């Protein structure tokens, strides 16, 4: 519903606006500035125009990193969203099991990112890691420092372990808000378990799923810490994602101009994909918004 217009409210949010300006807008503008310049250290800058962008968009290194990112995010979404829904569906709705499940689910989310990386780095080691050692003892050739496939599996499984809980918690919140009458009606209508999921649970989870997909996409697309800790982008460049590449370029090689151009493109890609997801998933929910507005007086 509409609120009273109160111009004082703008003063109230001013501190936050300033904070955002200093922490986000100004650095962003600096990056934009860098991306059009070339520097040779000593604070000397030369106008480079769109050169960096052209170079970047034609660089194979960038293409590969971008492709790796897209595949990674695709895999993450394809695994975590269905898995999260399944786990949420299996969780109890009442009784002592509820708090236990919720705490268990929240645990991975409480672990700092670099710790998650370290845990898996150790866990997967062939010499002392429980996972790596066991797998090799079973005759499976697993070594994430040498085999690109093993590295990918490790990074993906690690992310699934770390973040599926978030999807579960969001879906669970969506599920418990469905009124009991819907399930009763479905039983009376003779709906199968699948039909209940397809026509009641999924539509009612629509909004939380949108949030889950957006969050997981953005986070996985920006992934840095965990693969950096575990594989350092290797073996070779096989797990070098855009973020890792960016840091290599900016800090390792001190190529500020290309790195800045890359950050901008990176940022625009995330924005573009988020927008696409958002529009696709909210496309037919306009009528819902109208209906809920209409219902607000009831």
């Amino acid at each position, binding site marked *: 519903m509409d609120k009273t217009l109160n111009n004082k409210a703008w003063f109230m949010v001013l501190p936050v606006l300033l904070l955002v300006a200093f922490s986000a807008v100004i650095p962003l503008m600096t990056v934009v500035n860098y991306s059009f310049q070339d520097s040779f250290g000593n604070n000397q800058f030369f106008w480079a125009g769109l050169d960096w962008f052209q170079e970047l968009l034609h660089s194979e290194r960038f293409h590969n990193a971008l492709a790796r990112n897209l595949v990674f995010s695709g895999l993450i979404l394809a695994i975590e969203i269905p898995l999260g829904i399944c786990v949420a569906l299996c969780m109890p709705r009442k009784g002592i099991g509820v708090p236990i499940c919720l705490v268990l689910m929240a645990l991975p989310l409480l672990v700092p990112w670099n710790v998650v990386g370290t845990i898996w780095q150790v866990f997967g080691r062939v010499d002392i890691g429980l996972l790596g050692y066991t797998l090799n003892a079973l005759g499976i050739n697993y070594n994430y420092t040498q085999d690109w496939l093993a590295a990918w599996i490790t990074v993906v499984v690690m992310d699934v372990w770390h973040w599926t809980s978030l999807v579960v918690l969001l879906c669970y919140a969506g599920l418990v808000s469905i*009124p009991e*009458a*819907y399930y*009763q*009606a479905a*039983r*009376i*209508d*003779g*709906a*199968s378990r699948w*039909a209940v999921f397809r*026509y*009641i649970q999924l*539509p*009612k989870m629509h909004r939380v799923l949108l949030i889950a997909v957006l969050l997981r996409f953005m986070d996985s697309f920006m992934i840095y810490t965990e693969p950096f800790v575990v594989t350092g982008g290797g073996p070779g460049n096989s797990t070098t994602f855009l973020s890792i590449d960016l840091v290599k370029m900016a800090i390792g090689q001190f190529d500020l101009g290309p790195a800045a151009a890359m950050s901008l493109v990176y940022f625009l890609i995330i924005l573009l994909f988020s927008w696409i997801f958002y529009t696709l998933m909210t496309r*037919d929910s306009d*009528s*819902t918004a*109208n*209906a809920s507005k*209409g*219902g607000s007086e*009831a």
Partner: protein
Amino acid sequence: MARIELSHIRHSYKPNPKSDEDYALKEVHQTFEDGGAYALLGPSGCGKTTLLNIISGLLKPSEGDLLFDGTSVKDYSTQDRNIAQVFQFPVVYDTMTVYDNLAFPLRNRGVPEDEVGRKTRDILELIALEHKAGSKAKGLGADEKQKISLGRGLVRSDVNAILFDEPLTVIDPHMKWVLRSQLKELHRQFAYTMVYVTHDQTEALTFADKVVVMHEGQVVQVGTPDELFQNPEHTFVGYFIGSPGMNILKCAMNGNQARIGEHTIELSGLGNPPASQNTELGIRPEFVRLTEAGSGMPIQIQAVEDVGRYKIVRGLLDGLPLNAVVPEDQSIPESAAVEFDTQRLNLYADSWRVAREA
């Protein structure tokens, strides 16, 4: 359609019920005849929804049996009982069209698509939503959604019964009139066995042929609207049916005479309760005549509510509250008295009605 028998059903939400208090539903032994329209009427917490859920199979009774056409269905699932239910808040499948919503129960049961089409179109016509057949259900108004909920029940022509759980709660007053008369019309045309749960006496009385009045987990009276109005079997029924409810006046019995304070009322043919019991006289406000002081029993008028069609006079008779309903055009005398229509008096002993002498 089926005849529904509730055989000595009791239900408790506690695992080991001991006393009567522990039962949300005390013993109910009741038959709903095939093709009848019944209402379960009572305040919240009286057990009416519990009873409905037992019939639909959403709840299994602690004790007793439930029979559809003589067959015990106590252990049947909701699906197998083949009933339809309309809930308080309209339940529609948001992502489906109106047509698909109505076809859903048939498709779930593997009915061939051409038959689904025929039946669904029939129902669309019946609930007057043909023009909305292709629209998504979620954009519709509450009354249209409720019609869809009803339609999903009607589309299965073989249902044993249609159950209603306060279905008009979210409907605007004007729309209630339309939906109510459509329901009655449907019942008349197709003779479904219908059970309608509500706390609203108008809805219950206008809908049902027989109303089951419930109070604290017990059935206190089953009767036609007329019987419930004229001869409430229990003072609770007198109070609950009618607006305002029946006047219940404590009285002392002396042979055929009832004494209320210093007034004596001759009762003829109302029967003689044992002297030890608490006796009360019941008279509907509609049957209390307001007159000028001089004739009848003087009352102290406390308030007059003019509600347009009639006036409600609230007064005190010897300190006991007494309401009277007087016609729109009758003036209220300065000092008033009341007379009771003795034909309409009921006598209660320990809250239960004393049977009239033949």
